[in-house]
């Protein structure tokens, strides 16, 4: 069987059956990167030598007949804001263009326990601020499904690598939609787990109160397998949830009979193009056919979700990025005479325009005169929205929403503020509430590109999300959109 078409479970079996070695599998992916990545630009750094060494280690373990973890020997990619000890980690910013962390992110430690093979670090919007992967220091990533279009962002490199078959799976980070949006644009499954399910330790923060790491995969089963590997309590992350981790793939073949699925028709009417609205309704119909009950919901006051997200995330960005000051590590301007110059010039030269915009806005909303009017108000709205979702999730088991609202934009296309607001309206709801959200491709296509929907469930309902996702994608989680 073609390696390129295999899912993670099949790869694991093939490795154990000796159909091919981990080194062969790794060589296959490195060759794919060699062949395709010049056009796609998914990778910032390719770690060929380390990957082959890790693969060889897996092969030795396989030869000795050891019982290996499910992801052993399977090549993966990590978004370049996930710290990897001894390997350049840039977050696609000039500010960190020379940063080699002396530590690894928790999720990479977990995947190393799995004996995962790291192919390299993938492209993103600078410091994960964006939804197109165009603001990277290393240039835009292109969508493998159509090289004239964006892959979505900010985890666009991770999504593009998986979609192109230059990685078997990848991790991204999602603060306001950065796993789910590129998953949708590239026809992949993307999970944003419940806040606290996966440790953020070692992930370069955007907004700590909303950042989450999640898997980008071709199938639901793959996604659940990766989530199984990276979820868990981390005693060194204060926001990490201390609870038992279930098998997230356990519900994949259970179906949706009797499940109550909520729809917010108002929002579909006002914020989504006709084609995309039809795709959501088609997904709802598929769920209904499979035995779910569709319930119409009318939440109050969700309109302020995006401005709320924007204010709060900017506030956290402005504080969290303060450490990138040119003093202790990272980029330092060569043009300085005193301390003030180092700060001013390093940050002026080191950050791109979007990052600067967010820092400025964040400083403004946290300043003494505007703190109450903006930051405190936004926190109150955030609590209100969380309460609205809790109420809705008393009426239904899951909520069905669009992931994106229109066809994948062309590279360089200027997006209207309206579009930005609409796309982000749906993507920021999970981060604001801390709830898990799963983006899955439907069988609808617009301009021959896949259309995705997302499901939001109660905290720690990831298994249920995969279960319902399977009904949308058809089958028991093994399917892919491509």
């Amino acid at each position, binding site marked *: 069987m073609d390696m390129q078409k295999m899912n993670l479970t099949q790869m694991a079996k093939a490795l154990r059956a000796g159909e091919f070695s981990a080194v062969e599998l790794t060589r296959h992916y490195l060759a794919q990167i060699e062949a395709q990545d010049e056009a796609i630009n998914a990778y910032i750094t390719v770690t060929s030598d380390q990957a082959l060494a890790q693969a060889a280690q897996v092969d030795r373990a396989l030869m000795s007949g050891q019982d290996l973890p499910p992801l052993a020997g399977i090549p993966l990619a990590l978004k370049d804001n996930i*710290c990897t000890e001894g390997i350049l980690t840039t977050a696609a910013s000039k500010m960190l263009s020379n940063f080699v*962390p002396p530590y690894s992110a928790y999720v990479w430690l977990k995947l190393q326990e799995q004996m995962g093979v790291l192919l390299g670090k993938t492209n993103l919007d600078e410091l994960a601020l964006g939804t197109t992967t165009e603001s990277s220091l290393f240039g835009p990533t292109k969508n493998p499904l159509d090289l004239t279009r964006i892959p979505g962002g900010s985890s666009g490199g991770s999504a593009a690598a998986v979609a192109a078959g230059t990685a078997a799976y990848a991790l991204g980070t999602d603060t306001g939609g950065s796993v789910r949006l590129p998953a949708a644009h590239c026809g992949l499954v993307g999970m944003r787990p419940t806040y606290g399910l996966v440790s953020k330790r070692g992930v370069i923060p955007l907004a700590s109160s909303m950042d989450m790491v999640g898997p980008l995969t071709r199938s639901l089963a793959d996604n659940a397998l990766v989530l199984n590997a990276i979820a868990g309590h981390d005693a060194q992350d204060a926001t990490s949830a201390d609870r038992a981790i279930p098998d997230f793939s356990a519900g994949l073949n259970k179906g949706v009979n009797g499940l109550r699925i909520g729809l917010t028709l108002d929002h579909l009417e006002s914020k989504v193009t006709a084609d995309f609205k039809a795709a959501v309704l088609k997904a709802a119909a598929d769920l209904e056919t499979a035995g779910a009950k569709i319930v119409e919901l009318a939440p109050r006051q969700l309109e302020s979700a995006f401005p709320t997200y924007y204010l709060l995330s900017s506030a956290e960005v402005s504080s969290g990025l*303060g450490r*990138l000051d040119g003093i*202790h590590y990272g980029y330092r301007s060569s043009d300085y005479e005193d301390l003030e110059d180092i700060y001013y010039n390093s940050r002026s030269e080191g950050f791109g325009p979007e990052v600067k915009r967010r820092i400025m806005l964040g*400083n403004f909303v*946290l300043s003494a005169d505007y703190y109450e009017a903006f930051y405190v108000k936004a926190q109150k709205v955030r609590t209100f929205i969380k309460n609205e979702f809790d109420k809705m999730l008393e009426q239904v088991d899951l909520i069905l929403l669009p992931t994106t609202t229109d066809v994948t934009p062309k590279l360089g296309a200027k997006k209207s503020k309206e579009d930005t607001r609409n796309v982000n309206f749906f993507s920021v709801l999970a981060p604001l509430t801390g709830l898990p959200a799963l983006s899955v491709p439907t069988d609808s296509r617009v301009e021959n590109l896949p259309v995705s929907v997302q499901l939001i469930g109660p905290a720690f309902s990831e298994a249920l999300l995969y279960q319902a996702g399977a009904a949308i994608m058809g089958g028991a989680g093994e399917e892919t959109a491509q």
Partner: protein
Amino acid sequence: MTKYEAVIGLEVHVELMTERKITCYCKNEFGAEPNVNTCPICLGMPGALPMLNRQVLEFAIKAGLACHCEIAPYAQMERKNYFYPDLPKAYQITQGQHPLCIGGYLDIETRAGKKRVRLNRIHIEEDAGKLIHLEGEGTLVDLNRAGVPLIEIVTEPDLSSPEEVDAFLRKIRAMVQYTGVSDGRMDRGSMRCDVNLSIRPAGTEELGTRTEMKNLNSFNFVTKALEHEYQRQVEILESGGVIEQETRRFDSATGTSSSLRSKEDATDYRYFPDPDLVPILVSPEEVAAIRATIPRLPDVRIEEYVERWELPEYDANLLTNDIRIADFFEAAAVHTNYPKIAANLIIADLLPGLAEEGDVPLAPEQLSVLSDLLGTEEINSNTGRKVFKAMISSQDPIDPLAYVEEHQLKQINDPEILAGYVEEALAASAKAVKDYRRGKEAALRSIIGQVMRATSGRANPILTEEMIKDKIAALPEPE
């Protein structure tokens, strides 16, 4: 300080002697090689996450309870954002709207009397690193101190003189030493003080414009800075000027101060709750468990010393400022019939020279025996102080009984032996006797002095005086 009275409030920073730093796993130790105790968390590297050290909470709660604070059931760490090379995260993790300890007070006593100084709050925060400026070579950064836990004790503006401030700082130091949360050493920077001072016409209520002086690091400098700033403000008002709200730097070397920044230049620190750290919830049970570990505090001991050993309250205060002294005194007092004598010896000769750290240089049993010797008049008070000083400075423990025997220091209390010395002294002091009889009391001192010299200071001074007076009275009336 007559026409204007000073209104003073303090912010006292105390480093907590926890094993590890406040949000990472680095050792919290003084005097290590630069940057040895650092890690990605206290170096502020991207993606490194803080975890609040539970021992910091425990220590801060101990200090809070010792200062009669209420322990907040809900507290939160906040970020105070500013740029400086000793602050690698570009924000300090501290507390703003929800401090750990609320309110509280400390009672102080000065020559002016007793006073209750109210506290506004005690909160926890991290220290910054240190910059070392090398002449002509630039500036080096040592981040061993970055992330060392601090408590900041904020008072209400209840203090009104340098003497009160001094007493208050000594009380704070006593509290942190008693509870064992810090050594409270100003010379090492483990206790530092910011003072806010304003003045107003004596007897009025309205507060004047205040100035702040930061990072005063000795008791002496605090006093000097306050005296200086009070005088400066008085001179401004007297000459018809206006006091600016500003932060001033006190130069301890020259005893002068200069403006550091005005109110207009004040940084906007953009405080907000730290999203990396969850709210701090302390249960009443946890508070009770911590309370149970606090030793008897100065106020309790002062009361005991006054009642049980009939010490003046002022003396009891002096003895309880330092837990080493208080424990030492108590151990000595229970084994002598003369605890007051023991107290006086400590105050006169042990306290002034005692090192900031280390054990008391003699055993309490030695002081008990010496106090008994004094109390039973086996030795006189001069000899007592001499022996006490010898015991303090000697490397080998001195047994006071043996020492007195060996150096023949026992007091001469026998009138028959004294009579001879008195006769000799009177015979050699015809002029003094004459003067005394003419009403010159001081003349008597010189006659007593002669007896003391002749007996190497061993004569019982009271008995000697009586005998001399009696002898002179028995002399025939002069012509």
